[in-house]
């Protein structure tokens, strides 16, 4: 964690409405660094960084989660080590590396 800074709203899906003075937690999303805030879930981190969380397996486009309460199972993503996590119920941790698309076979 680094010093607390104000994070701009940026072009992501979500809008932060307060609680901005939390420590920054740097994670990587598909290899790119992203500054989340301590206490963010992975879903919040992904949707402040952009508009998508994963792709539907069946070719009908991007998905961004739905229920926010661990019921709909729409926000499962990959960690770089291959583990599967549900973004809405997983808090960010420094150095966490998340993939919104599965790694190619053999990468994990």
């Amino acid at each position, binding site marked *: 964690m680094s010093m607390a800074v104000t994070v701009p709203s940026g072009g992501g899906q979500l809008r932060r409405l307060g609680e901005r003075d939390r420590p920054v937690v740097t994670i990587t999303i598909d290899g790119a660094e992203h500054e989340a805030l301590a206490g963010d879930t992975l879903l919040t981190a992904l949707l402040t960084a952009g508009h998508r969380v994963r792709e539907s*397996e069946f070719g009908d486009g991007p998905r961004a989660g739905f229920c926010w309460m661990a019921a709909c199972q729409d926000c499962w993503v990959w960690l770089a080590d*291959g*583990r*599967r996590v549900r973004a809405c119920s997983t808090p960010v941790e420094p150095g966490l590396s998340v993939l919104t698309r*599965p790694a190619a*076979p053999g990468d*994990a």
Partner: protein
Amino acid sequence: MTGSDKVDVAIIGGGTAGCAAALELRRRGLSVALFERRTVGSQASGVNYGGVRQQGRDPAELPLSRRSRPIWDRLPALVGHDCEFMATGHLKLAYTPEQMAELEAWSAMAAEQGVETRLMGANALAEAYPGLITNAYGGSLCPTDGQANPRLVAPAFARAARRAGAAIHEHEAVTGATRDAAGFRIETERGTRILAQSLINVAGAWADHVARWFGEFAPIQVLAPNMLVSEPVPYRLPVNIGVCGAGLYVRQIPRGNLIFGGGKGWADREAIRARPLVEVSCQASAQLARTLPWAANAAVIRSWTGIEGYFDDDIPVIGLSETTPGLVHAFGFSGHGFQLGPAIGEIVSELVVEGKTTTPIDAFSIRRFARAGHQAA
């Protein structure tokens, strides 16, 4: 159906064998009434793993299996649906030299019957399936085997039979049947009475009840295959896999789901209830993680089971009744009847119409239990 109707053939049991028989008998011009106490394909035919496999079968079953195999290719023409059948091949894995010797012996036997397999050592496996399979000693690939969606097969045969003019009665259990000079008198839980010239007993785990109505004994037992399925993960497993000894079997469908099983769930045949057991699900998951380490991160999303009938000698009863002319049995497929179902429909139809079949079935006679039955009685 009301009153007392007459048909050429009555069928008890709406699994794949019964529905395929209904279709075949209509093709031969006979009138057919099939009775299924729930919905077609709701037990063994519909809840199994979906392996379409010749590999590993008892030598006595191979002729049945060989006869059934080409029917799977013809499903779109025959029943109007491919039932997601894919000839992916079936790969049986050995982890010890002893297991490999078993595969080699089976392979030699099967070759004599015209079923080709490819025996593979560890290097050949690594080359053919890079990164997929670890630690195996060797394996046997039967390239003509494959897999299909068991939920679709019996219903597809039932729809085709219906279109061909068969009467398929779901949610209607047969409560009794007798035979007199006029034929078989069959009564259902809804009070339907029907007179049939022939009767086919394909009632699965409950078929011994039907046999008993005609003085025949079959020591059937209950088996509930404990099945699991994962979430969709990238498609990597192009072959249906079985593991010697461990009892694990696993396949992946192009949508991405890994379907796997091993061990038995809980079943109560009389209450018609079955459920998977968590400890068995956990054992199968552990075996999957050992066999295909890359699959360990996939999340399991569902488990299920259903009720199958089996015999201690691991082969079914198929053939004419020993006591009653016009009665044909085919049941107790002991956990490996899915692939055979379409051929069984043809074979029991031949037995009804011609009194014999071109496929050798002597090993499956209900006669083999007669002595035990007398002792039990």
